């Protein structure tokens, strides 16, 4: 057990800390709700400073607009820790940066890299994600949006859902069925679609929180140049999985739950019920402690995964369980907060008497964590099949004629 990163990193940490204390102080952390808007000019300017200093887009080659550093997870962690600790405004986070850019770096053409990466990491080019369809959620590979080659273009028709940022995005990375005759995983292509093309209709998708971060996207005869494909025709599923890998990494951060526990504890020390502090009620307190136990286990488990990565040790089932555990834990933490507040926990949208934090919104929002990026049922399939090596579900089909085996 060696929990220090070693002296070579102490210097780096000092450098980052200095940056936060000097440059960081000059900018203001914008209270931007997820996906609500394009980055402000201030955010874009700050992003430029961060890239120059190597505190974001760190490992992206210089020729594509990045800092050009070598991959070093400890440095990334130190940057994150120091930014959080000092309350320094972080860089722009969006799907273009977290998902498309790594994908292009891995499978894009040189031309695509040169064209798209720089404006994306600068925060000037915003990307929507065009994956899910109303009929294709857990079974994403069954997607039906069609792309037919006519001359130099794919002509696209279909409907997408959960298209976040679509209302203001410049571009969309989209999955389209281009080879209808091929088996479902082999008939999909990964295209880059300009959102200003005629035929794209965006409708906001209101969720249970009342917000509309997501959209439905209706696509009629939209023309996308055949050169806009990433990877080969029919290989879009493989390309998409490169991206999904990066998405999964974003969910289930164990630091979240520690913050949640701290927040509920503060709440319980303030909230009184007929004069008695909630913290002095053993039944609530025991619930808090139970959740803290799991939160700590997940926290140290996160350190173990980090350690595995730093020391280049293989990772088995340990890495696959994180999302399942962390998302339910968050849900339970917010649920406790609401219970502690009783009726006052149901107040919403800045109503009178509402408690400081928007706990109910977080409670509802936590379903997004549980469901997004693969429901719990899908997670458990992945854990048991990929993690524990248990048999895959039979590939069967059920219709009026009963069960049929699709594939041995």
């Amino acid at each position, binding site marked *: 057990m060696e929990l220090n990163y070693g002296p070579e990193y102490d210097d780096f940490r000092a450098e980052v800390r200095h940056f936060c204390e000097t440059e960081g102080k000059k900018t203001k952390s914008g209270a931007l709700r997820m996906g609500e808007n394009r980055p402000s000019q201030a955010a874009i300017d700050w992003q430029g400073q961060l890239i120059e200093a190597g505190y974001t887009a760190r490992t992206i080659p210089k020729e594509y607009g990045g800092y050009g550093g070598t991959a070093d997870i400890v440095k990334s962690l130190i940057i994150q820790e120091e930014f959080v600790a000092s309350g320094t405004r972080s860089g722009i986070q969006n799907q273009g940066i977290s998902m498309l850019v790594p994908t292009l770096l891995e499978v894009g053409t040189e031309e695509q890299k040169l064209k798209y990466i720089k404006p994306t990491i600068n925060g000037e080019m915003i990307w929507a994600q065009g994956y899910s369809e109303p009929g294709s959620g857990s079974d994403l590979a069954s997607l039906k949006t069609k792309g037919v080659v006519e001359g130099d273009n794919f002509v696209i028709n279909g409907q997408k859902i959960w298209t976040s940022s679509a209302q203001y995005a410049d571009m969309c990375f989209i999955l389209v069925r281009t080879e209808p005759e091929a088996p479902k995983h082999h008939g999909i292509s990964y295209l880059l679609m300009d959102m200003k093309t005629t035929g794209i209709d965006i409708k906001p998708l209101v969720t249970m929180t009342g917000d509309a971060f997501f959209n439905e996207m209706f696509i009629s005869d939209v023309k996308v140049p055949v050169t806009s494909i990433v990877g080969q025709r029919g290989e879009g599923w493989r390309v998409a999985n490169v991206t999904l890998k990066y998405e999964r990494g974003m969910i289930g951060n164990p630091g979240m739950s520690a913050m949640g526990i701290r927040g509920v504890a503060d709440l319980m020390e303030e909230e009184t019920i007929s004069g008695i502090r909630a913290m002095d009620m053993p039944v609530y307190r025991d619930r808090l402690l139970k959740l803290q136990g799991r939160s700590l286990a997940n926290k140290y488990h996160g350190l173990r995964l980090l350690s595995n990565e730093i020391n280049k040790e293989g990772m088995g089932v340990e890495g696959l369980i994180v999302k399942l555990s962390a998302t339910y834990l968050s849900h339970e933490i917010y649920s406790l907060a609401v219970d502690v507040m009783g*009726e006052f926990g149901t107040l*919403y949208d800045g109503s009178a*008497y509402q408690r400081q934090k928007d706990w109910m919104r977080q409670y509802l929002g936590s*379903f997004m964590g549980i469901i997004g990026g693969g429901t719990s049922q899908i997670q458990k399939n992945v854990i048991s099949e990929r993690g524990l090596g248990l048999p895959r579900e039979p590939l069967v089909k059920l219709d009026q004629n009963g069960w049929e085996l699709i594939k041995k």
Partner: protein
Amino acid sequence: MRFGLSEEQTMLSDMLNKYLVANLPLDVVRASSEQTLHHNQEIWSGLLDQGIHSILIPEDYGGAGLSMLHSEVVSETLGKHIVPVSYLSNAVLSPLAILYAGSESQKEQLLPELASGSTSFGIALTDVVANRENTKLEINGNKVSGSATFIMAGENADKLILAAPGTLLIVDTKAAGVTMERLNTVDKTRDFSAVTLKDAPCELLGEIGSADDAIEKLLNAARISIAADSLGAADAMFNQALAYSRERFQFDRPIGSFQSIKHILAEMITDLEPCRSLLWYAAYAYDEVEDEAKLVACHAKAHISEMAKHVGRATTELHGGMGFTDLLGLHFWFKRIEVNRQLLGGPELQRHNAAVAQGWAPNAITAA
């Protein structure tokens, strides 16, 4: 021997169901939810025509003089359809408050008005159950000052019934010194508000300090009615989950053919079905078995709150992303269950009260 609903009670439920299916599609609920005041006057009038407001009012005062089990059937049906009007305040708690605590002349005057729907009442009991804002009501003769929170259906009411420990009183919403403030909860099918009173005229229900027993009985009525509303809502969610699991195909099969989904649905119905029996008995005991009334009412509220929450969560999850959107509107039921859970005391407080009812805990909230 018959443990269950009478034919009459089943008919009441069917009638109401039919009316609501015809007149309250989800779009109407959604439209009400988008108004500042969620109360839907048209549905309110329709329900008045169905006569459900007078169920608990004795025949002598112009009511139907029916049982709590009749009322339970109504509450459950209203919860199932997430109805945007307050049956609880106008047809359960306010008439019972007057009946239990009021003088004969108050009963003669007010109960027929409630039965006919000509006067509407909001009622606030939250602050005597678990006071979180240190509110107080100070009564000086026929004036009252102070404040109260979480009034149900107060904003569109003519009068409010307010509770101080041991005392119930009525104020007119339009009287001088009465200031109402809207409280927006996450459940946009019902209205809540707070009130501030400055030397506002008030009418006591009975004497000062004489309403302890009345308040205790009101709380039992509230526990049963809220639990019924949640059970109705949970039942509606379960049925949507079951239907969706048959309709939704993924991987070339209905998702309800996956064993994991089947088992989730099996767990839901296993949790849910005995709740109905518990609730029936709680309503029966309210009228017929005084000794058990509080114990069973507390347990009904606590247990059904927990089970309904499970069902709400599992149904939302089972719908995947769709469960999280407004497209299907599942969240209306989910939020109704959430607010019901907290209303007049969450499960922890209810279980504590059930313990008190058996001599297992001292009568203090400390141990909640």
